[in-house]
C-alpha cells in the first residue's frame, strides 16, 4: 500500500500535465507581464527595457487616477454592503422554514447568469428616456441621467453600477454565510435562550463569532471579484461618460487592446495584481482565528 502511494512515476503522470499547463499559461505570463511593465512595448515594437517610465506615466495619468479611485470605491462598497446584506439575508433565511429554498434560489440566481447580458438589461433600465425614467415621467417626475451624470467625487453612474453589482452578487455571500450558520449546533442557541438571550443577542454573541472565518473567506472573494470587475461596466457605460466610470480592468483593456500600449497596460495589470495579493493578505490577517 505504502509503496503504491509513493509511486513516483504515477505521481508525475498525475500531476505534470496540469502543472505544465499552469506554468505556461499562468506562471510564466505573470512574470512576463511584470517584466513588460518596465518596458516600452506596443503592437509594432519589441519590448525594450525603460525602467520605471510606465509607472511614472501612471502617476500623471488622470484616467488612471479615476480608475484607481473607482476601483477602490468599488472594493470598499462591495466588501461592506455584501457583508451587511449577506448577513441580514442569511440571518433571516436561516430563521424561516417555509419558502427558504425558494428565496435562497431566487436571490442566488443572478450569480450564475452572464453579467454581459445583465449589464445590457440594466443599461436599458437606467437609460435616459426609457426604463425607470419612463415610469417617473408618467408621474410627472424627471429622473436623473443615471448612467451619464458626471458630477461628484464618486459619480452617480458608479453608484448605479455598484448597486447592480450588489444585486447580482450578494447571493454568493448570503449562501456562504447560510452554509456556515446552519453548521452551528442548535444546542448552543437553546442554551442561550435558557440563559435569557433574545434572538438578536444570540445572533451577536453566538452566530457572529462563529462565522468569523467565513466572513474572511467571503470578503476575500468579494475583494478580488470587485477588483477584477469588468463585464457590467463594459456593457453599461464602457467606462464613459468622459472616463468617469473607468476602473482598473476597463482602463487596462482600453490601453492594451484599443491603443495597443502593451507595456503601459502591463503596468496597470501589475498594480491590479499587487492590489489583489495585498487585499487577500490583509483580509486573511484580519480574520485569522487562532484556534483553527
Amino acid at each position, binding site marked *: 500500500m505504502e509503496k503504491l502511494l509513493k509511486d513516483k512515476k504515477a505521481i508525475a503522470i498525475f500531476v505534470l500535465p496540469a502543472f505544465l499547463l499552469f506554468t505556461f*499559461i499562468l506562471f510564466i505570463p505573470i512574470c512576463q507581464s511584470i517584466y513588460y511593465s518596465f518596458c516600452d512595448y506596443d503592437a509594432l515594437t519589441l519590448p525594450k527595457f525603460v525602467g520605471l517610465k510606465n509607472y511614472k506615466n501612471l502617476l500623471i495619468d488622470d484616467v488612471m487616477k479615476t480608475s484607481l479611485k473607482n476601483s477602490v470605491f468599488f472594493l470598499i462598497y462591495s466588501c461592506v454592503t455584501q457583508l451587511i446584506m449577506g448577513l441580514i439575508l442569511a440571518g433571516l433565511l436561516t430563521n424561516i422554514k417555509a419558502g427558504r429554498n425558494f428565496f435562497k*434560489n431566487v436571490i442566488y440566481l443572478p450569480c450564475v447568469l452572464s453579467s454581459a447580458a445583465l449589464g445590457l*438589461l440594466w443599461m436599458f433600465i437606467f437609460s435616459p428616456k426609457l426604463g425607470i425614467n419612463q415610469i417617473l415621467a408618467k408621474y410627472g417626475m424627471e429622473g436623473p441621467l443615471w448612467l451619464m451624470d458626471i458630477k461628484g467625487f464618486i459619480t452617480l453612474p458608479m453608484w448605479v453600477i455598484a448597486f447592480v453589482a450588489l444585486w447580482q452578487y450578494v447571493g454568493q455571500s448570503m449562501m456562504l454565510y447560510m452554509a456556515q450558520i446552519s453548521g452551528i449546533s442548535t444546542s448552543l442557541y437553546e442554551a442561550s435562550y435558557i440563559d435569557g438571550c433574545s434572538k438578536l443577542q444570540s445572533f451577536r454573541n453566538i452566530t457572529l463569532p462563529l462565522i468569523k472565518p467565513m466572513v474572511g473567506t467571503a470578503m476575500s472573494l468579494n475583494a478580488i471579484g470587485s477588483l477584477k470587475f469588468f463585464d457590467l461596466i463594459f456593457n453599461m457605460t464602457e467606462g464613459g461618460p468622459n472616463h468617469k466610470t473607468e476602473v482598473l480592468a476597463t482602463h487596462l483593456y482600453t490601453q492594451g487592446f484599443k491603443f495597443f500600449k502593451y507595456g503601459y497596460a502591463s503596468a496597470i495589470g501589475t498594480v491590479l495584481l499587487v492590489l489583489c495579493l495585498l487585499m487577500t493578505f490583509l483580509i486573511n490577517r484580519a480574520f485569522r482565528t487562532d484556534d483553527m
Partner: protein
Amino acid sequence: MNKIVKALIYIFLTFMAVIYLAPLFWVIMVSFKTNAEIFTDPFALPQSFFIDNYTFAWTAGQLGAAMANSLFVCVITLILSMILGSTVSFAIGRMKWKLSGLVLVYFMMGMMIPVHCVLIPLFTRFAKIGLSNNLWGVILPYLTFSLPTTIFIMTGFFKSLPNELLESACIDGCNIYQIFVLICMPLAKTGLFVTGLMTFVANWNELLLAMVFISDDTKKTLPVSLSKFVGPYNTNYSQMFAAIVIAIIPTIIVYCIFSNQIVDGLTAGAVKE
C-alpha cells in the same frame, strides 16, 4: 417566534424576490414586443407574440453560431478540467510525496490572480503560435483558470475517502491507476459533478478573455456576440432583449435543474477550509 416579526420577515423577503425576478420577467416579456411598443408602452403585456426578434438575433445576429462556439469551448474545458483536476487532486490528496503541499499552494495561487494580468503576454504569445482567433486559444486559459477551484474541492473529496477502501483494493491486486479510475473516481462523482457545473457556468459567462482573443465574427462566444446589439448606431432594443434572453435562458434552465448542486459546489469550496 413573534407573529409580527415573522410577517415582516416575509414581507421583506418577498420584496427582495420581486427585485430579483421582475427585471428577468420583464426582459422576457419585452423581447416579444416590436420596437415601437417598447417606446409607447414598455410595461404592458405584448400585444402579440412577435417572434421576429428571436429569428433576427439567432440568424442575423449570429447568436446561433455563437451558442455553438460557447458550447464547444465550455464542454471541452469541462472535460479536460475534470480529467486534469482530478488526477492532480488524487495525487495531492491521497498519495504520499514530499512536495505535495507546495504544489497545492502553487495551484491555489491561481485563485488570487486575475485573468487580466496574463492577457497581454498570452495574447502576444498566442499570436505567434497561431492560437489567436482560435477557439483553442480560449480553451487553454479557461482550463487553467478553472483548475484551482476544481483541485481545491476535489482534494478535499479524495482526502475524505476512507483508507480501508484503498487498502482492500490494494490487497485485491489493483495498481495505482486502477485504484484511481475504478475505486476513487466513481466515489468522487458528486464532487466532479459539482465542480463541473461551476466550471461550466463560469466559462459560459466569461467576456473579457474571449473578447480579446477572438476577433473573427464566426468564432465569437455568446457573451461577446451580445455586444453587437448595443452601440451608438443601434437602437433596436427589442432585438437586444431577444438576444439577452437567448444568452441567459440556458443558464436559467441549468440552474433550475441543478440549483442544489451548484449551491453545494459553492459552499464546498469555502466551508472545508
